């Protein structure tokens, strides 16, 4: 069986003249906590909806757990908390979970102890017999999280799962995601809260104007140093020498100067890179060393368009 639980190739969604998702290609491995990052309107929610079969792609294809998107049997193995979490508000919290047990093809009695455990997990046991219309926004989002986890899904899609939560609620979600990760459940997390993503995700993809523009493994980059270099044109042998010091993640040739970014394991590598460039008589205009936060990555990848105008 393939290690990839989500694979998407060139997914595109057009709503009339508007392109919501342009060209989405993704591969998510089993057990990953995958962060899907991007500014508002980048197409994150539409992407999730296409993967879940709620929205049919205009073109492109994708598989979830090996089956084409929308497959009914596979949907029994997924959990989903939508961005705009709204439920049948005349049901009580416990009844909502019982309803979803039935929708999963299970009897509420079968899943009775799981329902109680989840209500306790999201701290709603006291409110379980109250109708959802009396719930606060945070409580509704928490019962939605319980609903998403009910069928012990193999992949959980969480679309902005902390948007309605206070700091304690956010910690709870972080804990829940941590538990899921421990158990090997794949989590697909849509968020623009970078701190949250940094704390929970193993890998992130940046999406901009409906395209994935950059992918990053968070664990891998931890503790590493990134060096941004602006220098004259770099011949191949100098590039090779730099590549021995670290990993070149990005290099853009300009007319007069070249900008590259190198990720190195420790700072001792920095002077080595400088020597490799200066030693060949290549002008070195700028060399910046930084431990890069996800926020820095985000701003970098999104460019000025990612910032509010």
């Amino acid at each position, binding site marked *: 069986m393939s290690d990839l639980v989500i694979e998407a190739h060139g997914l595109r969604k057009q*709503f009339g003249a508007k392109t919501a998702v342009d060209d989405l290609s993704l591969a998510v491995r089993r057990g990953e906590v995958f962060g899907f990052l991007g500014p508002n309107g980048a197409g994150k929610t539409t992407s999730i*909806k296409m993967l*879940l*079969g*709620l*929205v*049919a792609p205009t073109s492109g294809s994708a598989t979830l757990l090996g089956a084409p998107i929308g497959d*009914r*049997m596979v*949907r*029994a193995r*997924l959990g*989903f908390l*939508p961005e*705009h*979490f*709204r*439920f*049948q508000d*005349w049901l009580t919290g416990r009844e909502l979970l019982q*309803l*979803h047990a*039935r*929708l*999963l*093809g*299970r009897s509420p009695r079968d899943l009775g102890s799981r329902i109680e455990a989840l209500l306790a997990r999201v701290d709603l046991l006291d409110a379980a017999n109250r109708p959802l219309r009396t719930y606060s926004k945070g409580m509704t989002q928490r019962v*939605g999280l319980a*609903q998403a986890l009910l069928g012990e899904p193999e992949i959980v899609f969480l679309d902005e799962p902390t948007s309605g939560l206070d700091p304690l609620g956010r910690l709870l979600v972080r804990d829940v995601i941590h538990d899921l990760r421990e158990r090997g459940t794949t989590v697909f997390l849509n968020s623009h809260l970078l701190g949250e993503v940094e704390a929970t995700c193993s890998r992130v993809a940046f999406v901009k104007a409906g395209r994935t523009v950059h992918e990053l493994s968070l664990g891998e980059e931890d503790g590493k140093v990134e060096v941004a270099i602006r220098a004259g044109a770099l011949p191949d042998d100098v590039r090779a020498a730099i590549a021995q010091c670290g990993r070149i993640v990005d290099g853009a040739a300009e007319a007069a100067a070249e900008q590259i970014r190198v990720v190195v394991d420790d700072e001792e590598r920095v002077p080595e890179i400088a020597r490799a460039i200066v030693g060949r008589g290549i002008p070195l205009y700028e060399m910046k060393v930084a431990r890069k936060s996800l926020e820095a990555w985000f701003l970098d990848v999104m460019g000025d368009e990612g910032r509010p105008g």
Partner: protein
Amino acid sequence: MKRTGGGLSTVAHLTLHEALRRRILLGALIAGGAFLVLYGLGLAAMVNNLGGPDATLLERRVALNMLTLAGLYAANLLVVLMAVLLPVDTLSGEIASGVMQTLAVRPIRRRDIVLGKWLGHWVVLVGYLALLFGGVLALSAVIGRFTPPRIEVGLPLVLLEATVILTISIAGGTRLGTITNGMLAFGLFGMAFIANWVEQIGTGLGNTAAQHIGTIVSLIMPSEALWQMAASQMQPPIIRELGNSPFSPFSVASPAMVWWAGGYVVVVLAIGLRAFGRRAL
């Protein structure tokens, strides 16, 4: 053990549960109850001098039949109202609010969501119809000692009429917003109502163009034609032939209309299923 065939019954059950908990049914029951009380009081007040002080038995029966049909007509309007309003936002509202998303990602077929909602609302509608029509007939039987003929034919026709309207309201909700959908369902009902009068008057005056308009509109929207068929069944032939009341139409659709209406329900529902199956949620 997992089973995934229960989507339809789960949604139907959910729909019934919702109808019982929401205020709309309570409102409809209060309106229906008030109507029955008024009908009973009115009937009781009139029953002893129906058709004038020296009316014959036949005249009394004619008057009682008229009154009962008037009661059934009012009940019919309440049922029509219920058939439009009860399910008018069940799909459009849940799509707009996002409630539909968590339902539709579960391992159930989209068509089972629509069929389940249709079935759940239909059961409520049958109950409401039984309550109102049963109430009018019971009051006529107890107070006026009168029961119209062939109610076993008339009532299923009224149910078919209500089913047509319910189906339009549900199928419209797969594509249209709540208000547009309600306007469409009531608009069609109103159009059929007017067209039927055009047809009746045209038939009375021997105007074939007016008759044709009525017939064509009845095919587009069979609700009023079904009510007229039901009303003409639930009166003795002699009164029907006199044709002197709003419930004794000059022109009644042929029995083929029942088949047409049955097919109409199936086709409209199929269009709704198709639209819902394709739309972005």
